[in-house]
């Protein structure tokens, strides 16, 4: 129990170790974790959303889109990081590539399924109104796909956050994983403090994404949903970390 009290004291001191005043602050590592998560997610979304939505719109490539998700889920993050080190060396580039490799499959799969499962009658009606393919995608299929699509984005974000801690094992030092991986310097209280920060950050981002999802969902489709946290947190360990 004392460890947990010390962990909160560690957070309160912003990660400073008494007697060792030159340590990098907890805020720095937290911001580093947040930064790399945001960058990796921005790249992954830019790659995965257009592909998944377009395949779903065309109703093509279901085998690829679904199995990509299954294989992606099976990829061990440490293995991906390790193979990446062989090709790209240690550092930010390798970590970013690994994070994108892990985040892209669930986003593609969910975007595909979300758009693909839209009622064909609705699409027919939209076409009958004279909408072009792009208009159908943007104004009919996309709004209806939001719940599934966002579920993929939320899962991927949690993979990415948890993998940033594993990245510390491959020598990447600008995230909270650096503290978790360095018990010798930070002691168990520091490790627990950093772990609490990671968990808090995951829950916070989850809440932000839940709000984003609500805003993106067309008003008539919004139901009084509760924020099902445990459901989404399933993603945290799915790909491994």
């Amino acid at each position, binding site marked *: 129990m004392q460890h947990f009290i010390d962990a909160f004291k560690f957070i309160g001191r912003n990660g400073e170790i008494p007697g060792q005043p030159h340590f990098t602050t907890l805020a720095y590592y937290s911001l580093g974790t947040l930064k790399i998560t945001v960058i990796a997610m921005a790249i992954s979304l830019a790659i995965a959303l257009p592909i998944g939505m377009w395949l779903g719109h065309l109703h093509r490539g279901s085998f690829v889109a679904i199995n990509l998700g299954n294989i992606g*889920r099976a*990829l061990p993050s440490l293995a*991906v990081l*390790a193979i990446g080190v062989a090709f790209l060396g*240690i550092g930010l580039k390798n970590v970013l590539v690994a994070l994108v490799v892990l985040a892209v499959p669930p986003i593609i799969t969910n975007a595909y399924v979300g758009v693909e499962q839209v009622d064909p009658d609705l699409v027919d009606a939209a076409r009958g109104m004279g909408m072009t393919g792009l208009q159908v995608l943007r104004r009919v299929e996309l709004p209806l796909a939001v719940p599934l699509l966002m579920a993929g984005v939320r899962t991927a974000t949690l993979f990415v956050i948890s993998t940033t801690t594993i990245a510390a094992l491959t020598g990447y030092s600008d995230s909270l994983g650096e503290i978790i991986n360095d018990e010798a310097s930070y002691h168990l209280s520091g490790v627990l403090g950093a772990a609490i920060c990671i968990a808090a950050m995951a829950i916070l981002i989850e809440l932000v994404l839940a709000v984003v999802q609500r805003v993106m969902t067309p008003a008539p489709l919004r139901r009084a949903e509760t924020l099902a946290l445990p459901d989404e*947190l399933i993603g*945290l360990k799915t790909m491994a970390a």
Partner: protein
Amino acid sequence: MNPPFAAGGPPVIIPTFGSPHQYACERANGLFCLGWFKQNWGSVLWPALRQHVVLVLIAVAIGFAISMALALIAHRYRRAEQPVIWFTSFLYTIPSLALFELLVGVPGLGLSSATAEVALVAYTLLILFRNILTGLRSVPAEVHDAAEGMGMSRRQMLLRVDLPLALPAIIAGLRIATVSTIALATIAALVNNEGLGVPILNAISDSTFKTELIAAGGLAVLLAVAADALLVGTQRLLTPWARTRAA
């Protein structure tokens, strides 16, 4: 990078490697040294792979037994569900590195396979419990009525109706639990010095020996994909009635 744990763990089972001539071989083709792979398959990679499989099988088996028991209790007494979900979700949100370090400090565990197994089992519980319970609950009420009308006892109904119909959901849970345990077991190498994580971590700290990184990392990926495929196959064999629908 500092080593996460102080020395004094179990004896090193897998030899350290990366002698100069091996690096020379790698330099020759820049990335992968097939000679090293062949030479070290029997002494390094195969034992690591075997340890990894054993580690995962034990963890998933224990996790499955615990989850099944909890799910059966929650199936009968609805009130038991929420506390289990809360507890297992809490376990699930702990970053794995932190959980391993926390458990190493527990008296009686230390740097051992037991520590690794406890953590791995802890992470399987949420997924398995939820999937088993969801599967059991999704049995249609009419099917229950029919079984009752046939005079089945509660026990017969569970064994001959509920569990078989829950099988797709249970195996879906086993798939996720297995692949995530395979992944987490690479990180568990820090505490038990076993499995594919050992050569991976070795090769990273040993001025990134590429051949070993690719070989051990590749084996971990292949193992996870193969285990996933195996479980899909098992499901198709066990639930012939569901084959017409998407697996």
